Structure formats: C-alpha cells, structure tokens
C-alpha cells in the first residue's frame, strides 16, 4: 500500500548542498545587510529529513525586494470566496481590487453568468466621500440592489478592501441587519489586504467566516449515504473540479459539495453531513477541515491528483477509508486507467526524460506536481512557495531531491539568480515571472492558471498536463531565440 512505501532520498547529478548554499550566498550578496539577514533564513538547500526546519516561512515580506505575493483580499476573493458560483461577491472599497481579480484566476463556473453564477466585478467603488463619511450606508443600499438585480444569488459575500478596515466601518452589523431584511445569507469578511503577510491570512479569515456564517446552516434533503464526501481545496482552475469529481464518482463516491471551485453555497453549508472530507489544497482549507473534524467528527484526508503515480496512491488511500466495494472499484479504475496513462507517458516521456524543472508557485503545487513531472521522467531541481507555512514545507521537503534549492517568498532577484545558475529546461511559476524567463529563452508554464489550459487534475488532466509540458519544453520557437547575426 502507498503509505508503506519507504521514501527514498532522491539525488540529482551535480547538485550538492555545498553548491546550492554557495548559489544562495551569491544571491544574497546584493542585499543591504538588514535585507540579507531577513532573506537568508528563507533560502536553503533541501534536506529531505529535516523538513520545515530548513527554511523560515510565513513572515513579513521584505520591503522593496519585488515579491510575487498577494494580499489577504486576494486570498479571500481569488481563492476561497470568489469561486463559489451562486453567490454575489462584493469587493467592498475602491474599484481596483475587484477589477484586477475579475476573471483572472480561471476558477471556472457552471450556470449562467449574471443569472445563476456571478463571475463578475461587483464593487462599492469607494469615492473620497465614502472614506470620509464611511461606507456602511452605501453597503446597505448596495446589498438591497444586489438582491433585486440578482434574485437567484444564494447569498452575498462582502469582501473588505484596505480602506474599510482603516476607517472603522462596521460591516458585520450591516451584514447582520441586511441578512435579516433580505432573508439571504450576507457574509462579512474582513480580509483587508494589509492584514497578515500574504494571501494566506485571507484564506484563514475566509475559512473562519465559513465556520461562523455558513457551515451547518443547510441540510441535504436526500438521505445521507455511506459514500458521501466533499471535495475540498479544489478551485476548478481550467475545470480541475470537474475532472476530480468525475474520478471520485467513477470509484463510487458521492461528491456532495465542492469547496469552492464551481461551488454552491447551500451544498457548502451542508458539508457537515458528509462522511469524509477530501482535501487537495491543504494550505487554503485545512482550517475548515479541522473545524468540521472537531465540531462534527468528520475525518479528512489529503490527496494528490497530479499524475498517475500520485493518483494511484491517493485512490488507494481514499479507498482504505471505505468498504470493499469502493476498494474493488478503485483497483478496477486504476487497472484500466493505468493503461491509458501509460500511453501518455510513452508518447511524451522520450521527449522529456531527464529535463529539469524549477517551480515557484503557491498553495500545494510546488509539492503536489512533483510526482507528475517524475511520471514524465523529469526532475524538479528547485521549489518554493509564495505564502506557505512550516507545515507546507514539512510536506514538501521529502518529495524533492536532496540539496535542491528551496526558496520561500522569493524575490525576483533571487529567482533570476537561481535560474541563471541552474539553467532549468522548464520553469513553472506565475504571470509576473513568465515573460522574464521567456526573454532568457527558457520554456515556461504558468502554474497558477495552467497557462489558459487545463484541467490538470486526475486522469482527465494528466494528458493535458503532459501535452502542455511537452509543448513548452520542445517548442521549436526556442531554437529561434539565438540570432545568427
């Protein structure tokens, strides 16, 4: 069984702890002393046995270094609340935050836009007078208007931007009053961007508001079944939820709710009735898994649906929580799908064997995608997170080869230096990094948004992932970069 596999320490030719540390030291030279002191603990050669003690994480971003991080609002709007499709999400404050996060995460939604799903930019568009006199009154009016214009919205989230918290507005009492008046859940979420050190606190604050305002407020009308589960921490980037849900259904599980990709508020609210929570992105939603475990006794299980090896391990771990029927289903599905996946590997692996990858992403991807690259014969030689905590690094270090460079909240200066030194064959990071590295002639994939592709999850996703990695690495366009004159 998967959990009995003894983890082997992976090695990469030419990468030693000494060489990696030297590379890190070189990157740090450019910093003023204070900056260097602050950044040094966030960079280290991997020690698969030492886990999170290698690097410091979840600390304030050092000013002026060009961090890729977002803010608490980004974590609330972009990650946790925004993907719930049947709620109106109000970006409460000035116009910008909601505008920048409008349709830019690729959390796809079913339903009809403006009718049953609300992938839109709804904002109170604060003006100077709202800063001076406060925005509570405007908020109350706006909530009424939202109810009237979008009658099928199952609820409204109020996502505070920086000024709201600074001017002392009381969105909680407005939400309480209006919720009663409109007979609709109105969830106040104080996720001002200045709170915390990254988007991570936005996830936590949003989880807390789900705990306080949502969970336990609905009940499924159909009787509970032994195979009821919820899919947690999947945001349906490029259709991931649909791929994952189909696989869970294929093995006989009944996915009652998805959190929060293509999510429905009522189903999320009734998740306290499921038998098991299956969590993909631990970072953004472990909080609610713990709440549901403590309050309702629902166990939770982390899994990984990237690449056939990890999918296989995960399916067996999931089956172990259920009856023989599910176990049988899982083996049958694995047997059948392994053949299909082998064809994918046979097609792409010869072109990708031995290629080196560097990752700098968020959430779960710097660790969860490692296996998928390995399925294609590739090796990850550097990884880091924008907003991880120690428990993320605990889960990451063992997945990565020994002595590879680990970077937490990397600055652009550091990333550029590491890439110059290591010359990877592929970089997986975000939009802000993409064109920098492509200008160097290096293949790149956006690994937050799947670079406008996807899904990458589950058996539906792996062939797409493999194709995308191949097209990035082996595009003939890279050969044109060097001019003959």
């Amino acid at each position, binding site marked *: 069984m998967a959990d009995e596999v003894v983890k082997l320490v992976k090695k990469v030719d030419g990468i030693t702890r000494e060489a990696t540390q030297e590379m890190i030291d070189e990157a740090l030279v450019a910093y*003023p002393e204070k900056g260097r002191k602050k950044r040094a603990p966030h960079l280290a050669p991997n020690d698969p046995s030492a886990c999170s003690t290698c690097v410091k994480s979840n600390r304030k971003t050092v*000013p002026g270094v060009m961090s890729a991080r977002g803010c608490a609002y980004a974590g609330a709007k972009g990650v946790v609340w925004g993907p719930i499709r049947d709620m109106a999400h109000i970006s409460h404050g000035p116009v910008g935050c909601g505008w920048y996060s409008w349709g830019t995460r690729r959390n796809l939604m079913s339903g009809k836009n403006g009718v049953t799903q609300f992938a839109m930019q709804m904002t109170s568009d604060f003006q100077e007078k709202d800063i001076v006199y406060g925005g509570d009154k405007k908020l109350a009016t706006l909530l009424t208007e939202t109810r009237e214009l979008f009658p099928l919205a199952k609820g409204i989230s109020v996502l505070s931007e920086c*000024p709201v918290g600074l001017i002392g507005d009381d969105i909680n009492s407005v939400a309480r009053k209006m919720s009663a008046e409109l007979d609709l859940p109105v969830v106040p979420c104080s996720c001002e961007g200045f709170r915390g050190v990254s988007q991570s606190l936005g996830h936590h604050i949003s989880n807390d508001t789900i705990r306080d305002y949502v969970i336990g407020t609905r009940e499924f009308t159909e009787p509970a079944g032994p195979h009821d589960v919820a899919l947690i921490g999947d945001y349906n980037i490029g259709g991931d939820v649909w791929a994952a849900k189909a696989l869970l259904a294929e093995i006989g599980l009944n996915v009652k709710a998805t959190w929060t990709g293509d999510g429905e508020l009522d189903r999320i609210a009734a998740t306290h009735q499921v038998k098991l929570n299956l969590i993909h992105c631990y970072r953004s939603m472990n909080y609610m898994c713990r709440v549901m475990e403590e309050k309702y006794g629902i166990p939770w299980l982390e899994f990984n649906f990237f690449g056939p090896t990890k999918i296989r391990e995960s399916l067996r771990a999931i089956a172990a929580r259920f009856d023989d029927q599910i176990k049988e289903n899982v083996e049958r599905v694995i047997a059948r799908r392994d053949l299909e996946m082998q064809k994918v590997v046979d097609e792409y692996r010869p072109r990708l064997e031995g290629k080196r990858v560097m990752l700098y992403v968020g959430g779960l991807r710097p660790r969860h995608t490692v296996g998928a690259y390995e399925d294609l014969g590739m090796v990850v030689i550097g990884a880091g997170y924008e907003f991880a905590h120690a428990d993320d690094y605990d889960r990451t270090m063992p997945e990565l080869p020994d002595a590879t460079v680990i970077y937490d909240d990397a600055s652009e200066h550091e990333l550029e230096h590491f890439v110059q030194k290591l010359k990877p064959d592929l970089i997986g990071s975000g939009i802000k990094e993409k064109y920098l590295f492509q200008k160097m002639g290096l293949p790149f994939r956006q690994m937050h948004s799947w670079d406008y592709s996807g899904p990458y999850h589950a058996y539906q996703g792996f062939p797409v992932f493999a194709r995308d990695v191949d097209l990035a690495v082996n595009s003939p366009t890279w050969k044109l970069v060097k001019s003959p004159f």
Partner: protein
Amino acid sequence: MANSLGLKVLPVTTTSPEEEARVAAWIDTQEYREKNFARQALVVNPVHACQPLGAELCAHGFEGTLPFVHGSQGCASYYRSTLSRHFREPAPAVSDAMTEDGAVFGGQANLHEGLENAVALYKPKMLAIFTSCMPEVIGDDLTAFIRNARSKNLVPRDLPTPYANTPSFKGTHVTGYDNMLAAILQTLTEGKKVEGRCTGKLNFIPGFDANTGNYRDYKRIFEAFGIPATVLADISETFDSPNDGTYRLYPGGTSLVEAGDSVNGKATLTVGPHATAKTFAWIKEQYAGKHAALPMPMGIARTDEFLLKLSELFDRPVPDVLKAERGRAVDAMTDAQQYMHGKKFAVYGDPDQLLGYVSFLLEMGAVPWHVLCSRGSKKLEKELQALLDASAYGKGCQIWMNRDLWHLRSLVMTDPVDAVIGDTHGKFLARDARIPLFRFGFPVFDRVNKHRSPIIGYQGAINMLTEICNKFIDLKDDTCEERFFEMMR
C-alpha cells in the same frame, strides 16, 4: 442543530432550469433595464481601474525606472499582473509591503527599508513612487518621508525619486497616469530650464495608451516629418522588447536627460487631453515653446489635424509619404465602407480613446449607438455630443456617462447593436448579445498581439476597419444559408 451564530438551518435548494430560464429572459428586458439603471450604490463590471495602475504604466515609460508602490504588496502584484497579461511582457515593480503595523506607525519605516533594498537589488536610474489605498487613508506624508530618506542617505544623491499621491478612491487609472507623469516631469525638469535654450525638439505626450504599436507609429510619423521628438513616457520598448535570450530589467523608456531637457523644447503636444490634463496644465505654465493639445489621432480627420499641427509647429510641409498614406487609408475606407455603413456599435473605453472610436465610426458611416464611459467628465460628455451632433450618423446616438458594463448589457439587449468596441471585459455582454467585440482598448487578456497593432494615424484607421469589416464578412460566411454562401463578398 444550529450554526454557531444561531443562524437557522434550512434545506439545500437547487435552482430549477425553469427558474434559471425565467430570470435569464428577465435580465434581457426593458423592465430589468429600468431597475438596473436605478442602481445607486452597486457598481457591476466597471470599465475603470484605480490610479496606481496608470501610475505604474507611466513609470515604465522612463529609462531605468523602477515603479515603487508605497502600500500593500498585494496592490503591486495586481498592477504587475494586469500589465503582464495585457502586453505579455515582464512588468517589474516593487512595493514596500505595508502591513497592519503601518496603520499604527505609518509607512515611513517600510518606505525607507524598501528604498534601500530596491536600489541595491535593481539599481534603477529613477524610482517612481506612488501610493495605494493604505497610506492614503492613514495620511502618510510622502514629502517628509522621502526628505528623511534623503537625509539618511538611503538613496543615492543623484537618483531622482518623483512621487505621486494616487489614491484609488479618486479618479481612475487614467488619473493616476496623469499624476505620475506630472510628478516625474516636475522632478526631472527641476533646475533644467535654461533661458534662451531650445532643444529644437517636439515633446510628445501620448497619454494613457497601452498600444505599443501606436508609439512606434507616432515615431515613424515624426521621422517622416524629420521632427526630432522626445516621447514623454515611451513604453514602446519596455512593453514590446525583443526576445534574444537576455532578460533586461529596463529595456527602454524615455531618456531621463532628454525628459529633463524637455522643459526647453520647441513645442509640446499632448494627444491625451483627458489623460494628461493636470500634466499639460503644468507644462503650459513651465515649458518653453509652443503648447498644443489635440484629440488622439484616430480616423482621418483627427490624423489630418495632427499632421497639420506638426506641420505648423515645425514649419514643415506634410511629407509625401504621409500624403500617400492618407490616400491609401481613404482608399481602404471607400473600398470597405459598404461593410460598415449603417452598422450600429456600442463603444466604451477611456475618454481619449472613446472620442477616437466615435470619430472614426462616423467617418465610416457607422453609427456609435451607445457611447459609454464608466468615469467621465462633463467636458467629455460635451465633446462626445458635439461629435455626434456634427454627423448625420450621430443622430439618435446616446451617451451614457458614469455607467458600467452591466448597464451596457441592458442597453445592447433592449436596444440592439451590431458590434461592440472596447476591451476584453466586454466579452460577456458581447457573447450574450451574440455580436462581435473589437478589442481596441485596454486591457486585452484574451487575444494575442493586439497591443502591437496601431489604431492611431492613417495606418490605424486601416487596421481598425480591416478587422471590423472582415469580422462582419466572416460572420456572414459562418451563418448565412447555404444558398447564399458564395465566392465573393
């Protein structure tokens, strides 16, 4: 069982397909339009973003300049992502990552540490500092903070550090562009005015324009005239840099020396009168030489006006090559006018571009039926009205000021048009109305190379009409009955 807040527990409900269909039909009605237009507080799908985005775009237009956001780090990430998505280019900028304690102590410590790190790591020739919400709300005194940084030698003595207050709760991205441009020019020209000196150059101000092709075409026109020009905030190389295997942090931008010397220019011309109102007002007081503000040269008449102004300012005839180009553009328009004549358009965008779209459409005999600006002045409204009034094709057209794209959706569903001109954000309403969207504005997230195709000048007119007419012809080919599907169009 009750929730922790004592909220009542209800059954899970599902919206039935019938209910969805009923509301889907309802939001297309006149009744809904009236409700929608009665909105007082809620803004849905606005066209405008906030000031600092424009400030960052402007900063990228200067040589060796690192945009520096005084405020939360998330703000900087949002602006950078937006610019990178639009241009498919890097948009390097830093923030000083203010957090909660900034609310208590102010942002000076962050600003100072940020300046020191940014200078050490990214060795800018200029730091262009602008603000997001937090320091604006708590009332940070940038003037004092930067003076203090200088007295502590945190930045090199000769490093210019222009700064602009760009509160997100006032104006739009266009206002932020203006504020940053004014601040940069004020800083760079300080003490540079020399009595009697004339650079002999044109200072050219494009305004908030995220089309690098436009910049290249402006420069081509100046070259054709033989007019030496300094483009103030030239983003064309920054956001359209070659891929030759080397990443350059600062691949282009207006030379700082030239920008400083612009105060001694022979003439200063802005084609973003709305986007650079503040900057231009200051220039009129401070700059030597002649000053002119013209509408963005879109379509024939406005390009004519532009060329005549250049001719007048520099006492040079309009070069033959541009006369021929005019002829070609007019030829293209007369050849293609039948595909646009009488077609109704909904147009929205930033003020200067909006005036350009309307002017161009009227020249083609097309009808700018709904003209919408999500933040615009009375002055803009008057100018738009005057344009419409001056043309037979403007009859009955309506101007919608301070309305958003959810309003525009109601408009195109109840009072239909044949196409929309705007930016990527209009794609939802265009799809609902089953009409094409022409992405001439900013941002474009979902098509490639739109920012490389100029929409100004005679060539821009050809580009726009080619895209529009061919799309209409495509539509006919794609949707007509088999018996009407024919070789020629």
